[in-house]
């Protein structure tokens, strides 16, 4: 199985290498090569998945590790770690990636950098798979950065557009901020424990070598990486802009896989987090989920709505993990991957047809694009949490977990309240999207006329994803296989840590039942209001918008995060940089100019300005030396008697000093 894993990893890498160098010269620009490689990778992933299924063991794992860097006293290994979570992720990543490759063949047709696109996509697939497979912190950081790179390259793929170029840069730099936190976290844990490998680290933590506040801090620093990558508050600003990339890219990277890496990371190192850290994660998730959902209500760009929806859903996953719903969070990751990819591809299909992303210019596309519509609808239902689609199960699990958390810790009851509210909002804006796009009258007839159903190469992936969106409902075995890990299990020293506290069984049970009912009700309510507003037109969106103008503006402007950041952090850095540059040129370099000019003014030696300009030997020391030179030079009057006088003067002074 290790061989399979290696092959899975190498296939896209090989595809990338070939594609980047000779892709353009291959028949059909080589698009089939990475696509084929990804399908092959999927086929290699399937046996791994089935092995883990057939083992049906929460502790199932396959590992292999090779020495990578040997410093002598410190050896850093690189290895593969496959457990149930990994095997699920492998399936998700390879499948969605393969489908999106396929879809892209149609979507990107005719692009001038067609072959380059596939190369990047393959590189991304490689990096993402590496991220999933790798067994240590350093490795995850490496792939973490690489997926970031691919994201940068693909967001800015149409770099002729300034907005695209900006978005790519913004994504990378914002992510880097998170990455530094993560890097510092790694610094701390490596310095404290001396190892990178997950299991070794957990063992160290379990043995109490890293504990208390430092452990919390380290956990939060690592979570900082996840905040960046998974676009959590307050580093979420890059993701909406990332929609400048081609839509399949948004689907793959900025919806299904890469952005979920943060969630995956939190899941992967779940035992590392202390209760305080988890609480922090839960709050961050809560804020993110609510904030993004509210922004999504008012957006009119179809992809931006989906982007905010993604952020919101990632918030859900974080909350799930943070409130102890480990399985719930990760299950939502899986289901979300399918239906969100589907949503994006569907929107891509629409955009492909009408050449606009603005929903106000769409409408009534249901008839023109039936496959797209029906698959899109399935995904919308899934994300809204309508049973029995996949999204229902996962979201319900999260909500249940928050509710349970709230019941156990009443002081944090705000979390479930907001999460349920957000669930309703989710349903609302998703249906708003569907109505505006597919129902009603066509608002731009010209575009409507030209609209057509997408080619097969695009609709087949839609269909496949729709199937998965419906069908990924095996909550039961997921709960068994991807079970919440227990730190104590890693302990090599007995009872170094207290066993994780178990929630009361009754609480859990009642919370789950309550959540089930509530979530269905709220989803329904959301859909109802949405329908009333955008389908039946019983409620006027405009009226409410103007009635709540300040709120509307706040949401329309995305809580002014971008403005705030550019006014503070970005402007601050640029200012600091300009100040440094100025400082360097004017002050350090020239203790030069200012002081030299000042010195020059002092100097009354003739020709000194000329010399300064002619020779231009320039630094303050030089100037000062010249100044003294000029002064001393005045002694050389040309009169022999003054020379004698001066010499004698010195002699007398020396003698008198001696005399005294």
């Amino acid at each position, binding site marked *: 199985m290790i061989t399979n894993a290696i092959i899975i990893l190498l296939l896209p890498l090989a595809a990338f290498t070939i594609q980047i160098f000779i892709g353009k010269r291959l028949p059909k620009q080589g698009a089939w090569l990475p696509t084929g490689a990804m399908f092959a990778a999927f086929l290699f992933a399937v046996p791994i998945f089935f092995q883990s299924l057939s083992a049906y063991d929460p502790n199932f794992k396959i590992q292999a590790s090779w020495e990578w860097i040997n410093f002598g006293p410190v050896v850093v290994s690189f290895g593969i770690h496959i457990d149930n979570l990994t095997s699920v992720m492998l399936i998700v990543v390879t499948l969605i990636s393969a489908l999106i490759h396929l879809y892209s063949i149609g979507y990107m047709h005719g692009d001038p950098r067609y072959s380059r696109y596939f190369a990047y996509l393959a590189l991304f697939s490689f990096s993402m798979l590496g991220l999933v497979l790798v067994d240590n912190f350093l490795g995850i950081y490496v792939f973490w950065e690489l997926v970031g790179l691919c994201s940068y390259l693909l967001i800015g793929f149409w770099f002729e557009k300034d907005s695209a170029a900006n978005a790519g840069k913004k994504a990378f730099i914002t992510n880097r901020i998170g990455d530094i936190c993560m890097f510092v976290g790694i610094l701390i844990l490596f310095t404290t424990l001396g190892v990178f490998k997950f299991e070794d680290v957990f063992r160290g933590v379990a043995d109490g070598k890293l504990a208390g506040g430092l452990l919390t801090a380290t956990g939060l620093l690592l979570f900082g990486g996840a905040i960046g990558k998974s676009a959590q508050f307050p580093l979420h600003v890059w993701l909406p802009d990332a929609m400048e990339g081609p839509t399949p890219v948004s689907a793959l990277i900025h919806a299904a896989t890469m952005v979920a890496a943060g969630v995956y990371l939190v899941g992967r190192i779940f035992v590392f987090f202390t209760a305080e850290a988890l609480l922090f994660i839960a709050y961050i998730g809560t804020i993110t989920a609510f904030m993004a959902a509210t922004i999504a209500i008012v957006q009119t760009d179809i992809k931006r709505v989906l982007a905010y929806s993604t952020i919101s859903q990632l918030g859900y996953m974080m909350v799930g993990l943070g409130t102890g719903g480990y399985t719930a969070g990760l299950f939502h990751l899986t289901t979300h991957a399918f239906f969100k990819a589907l949503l994006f591809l569907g929107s891509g299909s629409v955009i492909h047809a009408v050449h606009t992303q603005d929903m106000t210019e769409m409408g009534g596309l249901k008839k023109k694009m039936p496959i797209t519509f029906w698959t899109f609808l399935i995904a919308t239902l899934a994300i809204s949490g309508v049973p029995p689609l996949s999204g229902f199960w996962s979201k319900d699990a999260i909500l249940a977990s928050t509710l349970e958390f709230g019941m156990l810790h009443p002081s944090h009851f705000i979390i479930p309240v907001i999460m349920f509210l957000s669930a309703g909002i989710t349903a609302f804006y998703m249906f708003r999207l569907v109505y505006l796009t597919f129902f009603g009258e066509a608002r731009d007839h010209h575009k409507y006329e030209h609209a057509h159903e997408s080619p097969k190469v695009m609709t087949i992936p839609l269909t496949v994803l729709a199937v998965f969106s419906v069908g990924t409902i095996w909550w039961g075995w997921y709960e068994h296989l991807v079970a919440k890990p227990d730190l104590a299990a890693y302990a090599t020293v007995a009872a170094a840590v207290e066993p994780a506290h178990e929630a009361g069984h009754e609480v859990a049970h009642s919370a789950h039942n309550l959540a089930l009912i509530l979530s269905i009700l709220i989803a329904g309510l959301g859909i109802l209001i949405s329908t009333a507003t955008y389908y039946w037109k019983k409620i006027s969106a405009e009226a409410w918008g103007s009635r709540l103008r300040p709120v509307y503006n706040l949401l329309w402007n995305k809580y002014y995060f971008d403005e705030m950041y550019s006014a503070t952090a970005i402007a601050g850095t640029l200012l600091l940089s300009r100040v440094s540059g100025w400082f360097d040129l004017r002050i350090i370099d020239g203790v030069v100019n200012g002081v030299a000019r000042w010195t020059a003014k002092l100097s009354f030696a003739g020709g000194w300005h000329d010399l300064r300009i002619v020779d231009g030997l320039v630094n303050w020391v030089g100037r000062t030396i010249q100044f003294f030179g000029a002064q001393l030079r005045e002694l*050389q*009057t*040309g*009169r022999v*008697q003054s020379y*004698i006088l001066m010499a*004698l003067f010195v002699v007398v002074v020396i003698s008198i000093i001696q005399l005294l």
Partner: protein
Amino acid sequence: MSSIGLTHYLALSAVLFSLGLLCVITKKNAVTVLMGIELILNAANINFIAFARFVDTDLDGQVFAVFVIVTAAAAAAVALAIVLNLYERLKSINLDEADSLAR
């Protein structure tokens, strides 16, 4: 016996030396400056001869003085030649005018 001792001569020599210096430093006329130099040499010579009488038992100091006088003559001759030459160029032997080489 006389009360005039070594220090008297030395003091005289010191005064002469100082006057010679003063002359060298202050006179504009190059020839006068050369005269001042002779004064300095004379002062030194007084020293030599005084020491030869009071300190040394031999006449080394006097020998030295003779050599000083002779070399002074040589130097004065050359210096004067140079002064005359400068006069050819400058039509003046004022030292303060001979300052084209400076700084």
